[in-house]
């Protein structure tokens, strides 16, 4: 967990974001995978908003198959997976 005061403000970072499930249906402007350029420091929740996704539609996010809390600060070149709520069950 990286806190805001541990991160030096630098140039932009690029992050790969994968979306799946209902997010693909509800946000048809997004691809299954996209590379996003953004300013540091950026928590997962803000990155989600930058993509135009309502954060309530992300059940949880993972980075390297581990759950990343919505206030986790993403790093250069990381691969973020956004998991939508299961569509019923």
């Amino acid at each position, binding site marked *: 967990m990286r806190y805001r005061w541990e991160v030096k403000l630098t140039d932009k970072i690029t992050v790969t974001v994968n979306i*799946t499930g209902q997010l693909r249906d*509800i946000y048809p402007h997004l691809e299954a995978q996209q590379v996003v350029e953004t300013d540091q420091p950026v928590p997962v929740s803000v990155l989600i908003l930058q993509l135009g996704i*309502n954060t309530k539609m992300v059940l949880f996010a*993972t980075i390297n198959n581990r759950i990343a809390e*919505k*206030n986790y600060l993403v790093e250069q070149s990381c691969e973020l997976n956004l*998991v939508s709520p299961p569509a019923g069950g």
Partner: protein
Amino acid sequence: MLYGYAGKILKIDLSSGKHSIENTPEKLAEEYLGGRGFVARLLYDMIEPGIDPLGPKNVVVIATGPLSGHLLPGSGKTHFGALSPATGGYGDSNMGGHFGPNLKYAGYDCLVLKGAADRLSTLVIDNDKIEIFAEDKLQGRGAIETEKELKDRLGEEFQILTIGPAGENRVVYACISHDFGRQAGRTGVAAVLGSKNIKAIAVRGSGNIPIFDSKAAQKKGEEMYKVCFSKPGFKTWTPYGTASITGWANEVGAFPTRNFQTSYADFHHKINGQAIIDRLLVTDKGCFGCPTPCGKYGHTKTAVGSAYVEGPEYESIATLGGSCCLEEIEEVAYANYVCDQLGLDTISAGVVVSFAMECFEKGVLSADDIGREISFGSLKDVVYLLEKIAAREGIGAILADGVKPAAAAFGGGSEQYAIHVKGLEWSGYECRNAPGMMLSYMTADVGAHHNRSWALGYDVSQSDADVSELIEAGAGGPMEVSSPDGKVDHVISMQHSRPLYDTLGICRLQTMEIGFETFHYEEVFELITGRTITWREMLFISERIWQLTRQFNVKHIEGFGRSWDYPPERFMKEPVATGPNKGRFIERNILDNMLDEYYEKRGWDENGTPKAETLAYFGLT
């Protein structure tokens, strides 16, 4: 030659004990594909209006799809249907496990049951040998213990369906059980089996299914599994399964609590997917062909009893946990087990029990009526009521027919909070601030069911979030009002896409949850069957089935029309009591407008009856 299909339909007249085997008609396969398509078409053709759903003229159809039993992800689904004793209209239900593939290996795409046996019986289909055995000793035995006994008696290779005492006693929301934890839960098909004196159906299939190009189909099937393995969601979906919706449903104020009085449970973290993993889990249990087993098989211990049980799924958490207010996962799981053993649909049973609890709370029912005092949150009371219902004893005799007739019998204003549509109890999403999902429940063909169209995501995604609040990663804040605009189109679209999986005989969760692309199904369908058909063309077939099931209701439910498509008064009159949607309710005129738009887009008249030209367009005249 129908490649990909077993090629035969087995029809059994239980009254005479005779059976016939017919070729699966090519036209039926072409126009309806299989699974839910076969169920809808055969029921429409074989059942006359005015029959008793619990009499010998009702027909049970059990159908596999063209993709069932093949090498591809999620190929284990089976579809069931009958005239529903709960609604008097079209009833169907879908189930995972292993029964369907083995029915195909035995040589049958579909099983049709008419008439009624004269004593409680087991139907055994051992490839081409069809036998009906009297089973007096199985009377009153639990669904799970019956399966165990039959597995021991017949052998591991047999796949078995059972009903519990609830089915034998024709509780209108009795469920069919299979593989120690899977059910065909909704609409009471098990009650129809009970009325036919069928306690169990066992099938052994030792054959194969003809494939058009088996080498290419094998290669494609292997590729499909590898694609699943490569999806980012592959590892994250399986551990929690459907229970992972619990926290989210509470966060967005859609979790039915206290008989839908409110839509938020402050104890939800004690009954969620993590609670299952921490406190119950033994095995990730899956269906035939599934790479992402979402079944959570575990062991629960409570003061009332202990048991092994598969689940609870989200729906059972919502209705037994939320609606009945059972606050610990062990209690929800044990209530789930009791439903499974008695053979009760957990969704309807949970809603009926919570309805009874509210009736007592409001003084509509007395302790004398019920046999004791009851309260929300008491596992003992839940179990007491479930047992009474399954036995049709005391108050159970009325509750066994569902909340709609129960409310009519109890009066006292209880109709307002009998949570159903068309006589089928509502499932696990509270929708006073979710107009799309509300419409989904109103217009689902079988009654209040979520699985046709899951529009809740569209409703929730509209609520604006404030950037600053998000940095705190908060949850549980108030939801913005969700607009009905644009929702009708999404509902209609999902009512075609989601049931298409039931028609093909496969699970939709690989697509819905881990993003597995549908073009793979197009490709493998062609290699297996030799038939070129696009997903869009398959969706057209799904739409045809939708029109057919609506027409089925018009044909069978006297006076069927617009008034059958409305939700309970509670949702239009009572604001949500607590949680993120506190204060919300839905105005009737919003529902009127959505229904008007829905009917128009469906090609139905103002009363919701399909117009002649609509039926003609889909080849249904």
